[in-house]
């Protein structure tokens, strides 16, 4: 399994173009927001909304290629050497690392170009990590599903958004608490709910993935 994670990372580093593409995408959208809002500082509500939307799109774009981009030969090779459970776990862990790196980078870019309305950084970072975990678990499974179908890129977007919304709503709510400078204890309920959704998504992906992989 660790070998699989290492393989994912080394492939990612070897083909720098796709990683650079996602990074440029992130930079471009943040910069576009900055210009579109007339070089002004954002009010907290639009900051919150834009931050999560950009985060969601970069996560979808980066995770989508985890199965869709695989070549047929690689798939058959992986199928013959590894158990499906270890494949999905390694993909999820790798995507989790990628997503959290991207979201933290996005946060830094937002601070740089726009402003930083967050008063409780630790809680916000915890939310970022939990959300990245949720995104990576559900999106990895959905990318596995949509890679088997025709026009998989459109299908990926269609399948993932309704499922992701419950995670996104919770994290937007916690971020709003962070922005308003409320005491962290106010958001504990949401944090617990977010982690439990993550656990459910993880368990379900782990159980269901072997069925997709068999075909």
């Amino acid at each position, binding site marked *: 399994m660790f070998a699989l994670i290492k393989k994912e990372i080394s492939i990612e580093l070897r083909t720098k173009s796709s990683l650079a593409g996602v990074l440029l995408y992130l930079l471009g959208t943040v910069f576009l927001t900055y210009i579109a809002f007339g070089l002004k500082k954002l009010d907290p509500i639009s900051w919150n909304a834009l931050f999560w939307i950009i985060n969601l799109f970069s996560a979808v774009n980066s995770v989508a290629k985890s199965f869709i981009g695989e070549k047929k030969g690689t798939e058959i090779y992986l199928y013959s050497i590894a158990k499906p459970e270890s494949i999905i776990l390694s993909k999820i862990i790798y995507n989790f690392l990628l997503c959290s790196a991207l979201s933290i980078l996005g946060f830094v870019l937002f601070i740089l170009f726009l402003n930083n309305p967050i008063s409780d950084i630790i809680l916000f970072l915890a939310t970022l990590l939990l959300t990245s975990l949720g995104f990576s678990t*559900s999106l990895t*499974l*959905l990318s596995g*599903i*949509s890679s*088997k*179908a*025709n*026009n998989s890129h459109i*299908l990926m977007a*269609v*399948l993932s*958004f*309704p*499922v992701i*919304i*419950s995670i996104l*709503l*919770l994290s937007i*709510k916690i971020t709003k608490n962070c922005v308003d400078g409320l005491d962290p204890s106010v958001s504990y*309920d*949401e944090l617990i*709910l977010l982690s*439990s*959704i993550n656990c*459910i*998504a993880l368990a*379900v*992906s782990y159980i*269901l993935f072997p*069925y*997709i992989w*068999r*075909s």
Partner: protein
Amino acid sequence: MKTWLKVVCVVFLFYSVIGGLLLPVPRLAIVNETIRGLYYHVPMWFGMVTMFAFSVYHSVVYLRKPSFGTDIKSQLYANVGVMLGMLGIFTGMIWANYTWGSPWHGDPKQNGAAIALLVYFAYFILRGSVENEEQKARLSAVYNVFAFVTMIPLIFVIPRMTSSMHPGNGGNPGFNMYDLDSQMRLVFYPACIGWILLGFWIANLRIRIKLIEETLLETSNEK
């Protein structure tokens, strides 16, 4: 489906439509006579959730032991569930128009229900875009289970944590509104049972039609 269930379904539905309009209801501020909407709006959701639960059950059965019949069942139960869900949204919009002032009020439960319907539309699109029959069945079963499990927090948990104008949210106990008047239960429970049974009936007929079509196709292919 057993004949007596069909009779029960028809009788209950007629009873709930007529009784829902004629029997006395409690007078509440703002809601007033529109409380009768309860008889037509809430049973839709009960029916939808029951249909989706059956659809997921058949998906799980399919994953454990693939067969053509269970795949068809899970598809058609989801189909009828979506139909009931859309009726639920429309009746809710009519009701909301009179009590809340506008058809779409951004209520958390309303949004959650709309998202749940989006999930199932995505499910049908997924079914449409895979050509291989067996693969289609397997992928859509996986998505069905996954979507149902993530839908539960959406409809049942999140609205309860935020303030919502539906009863049973924001800390209000769930069925408090009905407890005010046991008279309303006399219509409400039969209406729920009637709509759930109607859902089963429609799904059942469509499953049988689909299976017959499939066997006809197979026999004509053999010729």
